[in-house]
């Protein structure tokens, strides 16, 4: 029997080079922490920004697959009120970003609104391209997808949304 590839989503935190860890959630808050537990102490203050999230797809084993591509990311819903979930993911005009320590001021890289429906085409690049695929002889990481939440000054209660990730596997 043939074996599929193993693909994980990893998050990078801290100063370059930083550390990179497979995610179990994408909770966002007032610390630069992977797999954060939501609590009063990690909550984002009204009128403030979360720390950016820097994540990317990583093929840890190709097994019997040859290529991974068609990367898509989207959220389950919009945030409420004037809160905004921003990102760099987009279906056109992808620009690869070199890792920089996540910030909790307005991100200059995450300027798009996170889509809440599965996009039609890929919205995360590989090697600065939508058509390049990850291969055992080439890239094993995608480019970074960056996210940040901006919490409006009037927000009292937030909304829980979730993230979806998708890829196509060829053999």
């Amino acid at each position, binding site marked *: 029997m043939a074996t*599929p590839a193993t693909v994980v989503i990893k998050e990078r935190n801290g100063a370059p080079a930083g550390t990179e860890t497979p995610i179990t959630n994408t909770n966002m808050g007032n610390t630069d922490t992977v797999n954060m537990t939501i609590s009063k102490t990690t909550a984002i203050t009204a009128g403030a920004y979360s720390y950016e999230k820097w994540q990317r797809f990583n093929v840890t084993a190709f097994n*019997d697959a040859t290529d991974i591509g068609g990367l898509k990311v989207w959220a389950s819903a919009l945030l409420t009120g004037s809160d905004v979930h921003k990102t760099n993911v987009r279906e056109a005009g992808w620009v690869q970003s070199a890792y920089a320590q996540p910030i909790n001021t307005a991100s200059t890289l995450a300027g798009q609104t996170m889509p809440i429906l599965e996009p039609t085409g890929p919205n995360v690049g590989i090697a600065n391209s939508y058509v390049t695929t990850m291969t055992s002889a080439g890239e094993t990481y995608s480019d970074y997808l960056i996210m940040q939440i901006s919490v409006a000054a009037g927000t009292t209660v937030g909304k829980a949304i979730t*993230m979806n*990730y998708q*890829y196509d*596997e060829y*053999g």
Partner: protein
Amino acid sequence: MTDLRVYRDNSEIYVWEWEAHYLDGTVLHQTENGLVHRIKDIEQWKLAEFKLCSVFPAVAPISLLWRPGRKLIYFTRVSFFNVGKENELTMRRYCLGYEDGDSKVILTIMPDGGIIVSQDGNIKIKVSEEK
């Protein structure tokens, strides 16, 4: 939009494997004698039928009868829905089809065995809040 409630596939094997049936009666299997063949190993010019067979013997195979000039499409699409939530779901869909001139057809095999026919394989799925 397809509402997916309970079906999932996060198997550590491909639960569907392909067979390339040639006009001369020979067959190339995806896995054969411990070897794994690639899609690029298929000689499409002499293809008569592209078939997907489930690893579960009770499940009927799915066949694509071939016509010369077509270009074979085959990939699997893996989705991680609601990562970190109680209703987190990993799902693999099997997509087979062809391009023939300006036309393109993709059959997407869903984890419950249902088949959705489309031109691009973009089946947008809504994952229910129910676990």
